[in-house]
């Protein structure tokens, strides 16, 4: 067995010819194939749709909750906000307060593209964009404010289609779930009404008569 293995090894190593010719053949074959070079500045690269180029901000969705800034491992997100009082819309109603975003900035010289801020954002205000051409000649110019971050929203691709047999998206399952409390407290009245938002818990609470003090009720539905 060992002698049989030894023999072919010897002819290849000592003779040298087959390996030498194989090398020539390999390079010749490569030369005849199309090259792998991506002519980048002339031809834009084909990137995977979910590639992490830059983080875009959808300002309307941001509630200045600061979750992203606090979860950011290298503290590269800067958020300034103030509270504004929204006067009551109905007589006798309660004034409400809301956060107004003054400044939202990401320092891309610090960002390590971990995507945690996008993961933790509860209101889908942050998105990955495949856009990557925002190099600067000065590192300090990489601190981008919310206007620039908002411009990148146009480059965010639509979410990928679900697989053929995938389960329904979480929002759809939640919306189709029978309303809580059916047959227990309030009778069957709530089942007929389709939930209006993707947050069924708030909807069912709002359907109840008592206003809940600890949760945020829908602003335009003071029933």
């Amino acid at each position, binding site marked *: 067995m060992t002698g049989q293995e030894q023999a072919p090894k010897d002819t290849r190593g000592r003779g040298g010819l087959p390996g*030498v010719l194989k090398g*020539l053949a390999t*390079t*010749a074959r*490569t*030369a005849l194939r199309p*090259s*792998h*070079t991506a*002519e980048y500045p002339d031809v834009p690269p084909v990137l995977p749709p979910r590639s992490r180029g830059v983080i875009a901000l959808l300002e309307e969705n941001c509630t200045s909750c600061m979750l992203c800034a606090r979860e950011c491992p290298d503290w590269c997100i800067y958020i300034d906000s103030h509270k504004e009082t929204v006067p009551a819309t109905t007589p006798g109603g309660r004034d409400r307060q809301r956060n107004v975003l003054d400044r939202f900035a990401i320092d891309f010289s610090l960002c390590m593209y971990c995507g945690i801020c996008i993961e933790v954002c509860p209101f889908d205000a942050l998105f990955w964009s495949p856009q990557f051409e925002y190099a600067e000649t000065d590192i300090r110019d990489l601190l981008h404010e919310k206007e620039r971050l908002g411009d990148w929203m146009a480059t965010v691709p639509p979410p990928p289609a679900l697989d053929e047999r995938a389960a329904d998206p979480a929002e759809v399952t939640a919306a189709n779930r029978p309303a809580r409390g059916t047959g227990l407290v309030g009778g069957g009245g709530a089942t007929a009404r389709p939930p209006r938002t993707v947050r069924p818990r708030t909807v069912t609470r709002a359907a109840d008569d008592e206003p809940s003090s600890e949760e945020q009720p829908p602003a335009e539905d003071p029933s």
Partner: protein
Amino acid sequence: MTTLDLVLRAAAVLAAFLVLPLVVGQVEHKVMAHMQGRLGPMYAGGFHGWAQLVADGVKFVQKEDITPRAADRRVFRLAPAVALVPYLVALALVPVHPGVAAVDVPGSVVLFLAVTSVGALGTLMAGWSSGNKYSLLGGLRAAAQLVSYELPLVLAVASVALAGGSLSLVVLADRWTPWWLLWQLPGAVVFLVAAVAELQRPPFDMPIADAELVLGAWTEYTGLRFAFFLLAEYAGIVVVSLLFAVLWLGGWHGPAPEALGWLWTLLKGLVVAVGVIWVRVSWPRLREDQLQRLAWLWLVPLAVLQLVLTAVGVVVGW
């Protein structure tokens, strides 16, 4: 030969000396790139980077010409010229067209071999004079290489000279017949291997060995002098390829009108040059002792055998 004729011939050789190495260099850029799955230069000059080497030349001219303090000044500054000029002389000897060589001397084969061996002296001088251990190692390796390739090279060429019964390149190319392709085949192989070793090209680039010796004898050179070494390397490829085309591939002989003979010579030379490049891309670098072993155990005996074969052929009258 009038003075005007002389000037014209000198100008033609100089022009060929400045253009052909650049052509080979550009071919190397592109062929090597595609063999490695790349595109090579694409921008300089617009069309597929044709002017890349011109741009490189302009860059080299702009660089500062530095002579290290520890260097042997005069030898150091002279070395690039010693490496470069022999190939210019050799190029003048190569016949490109029936009966046309810039300098047609009776013993051009001998002169050619003598002159091309001087080229290695430039590497030796540069290695010794740089005052740098890597350069010194490169120079020593060049010297060690010298003893392995010179003999088989001369023997292989001598075989062709014997077969053609002349020491003139013009006459030899004239007497070439397709039968030589087979008859002189062992000598051709020996010549190619030895010539690549003389050119210090991969797989025999131990004196240069950029990865281990930082370009060996060229380490300390900058600017135009460094460019001269590079030019010498590519001029060497041109000269050796043309010599091979003339002696073994029949120079201007080809299925075309006589007037296109020069084109045949250049095309055959280009094919040989592409072969030299191909080998560079495909094979790893040998050690110096492996080259010695190859030269003395294979090339020299093979060349002697070829010489015997040629002698028999000449006597029998093949």
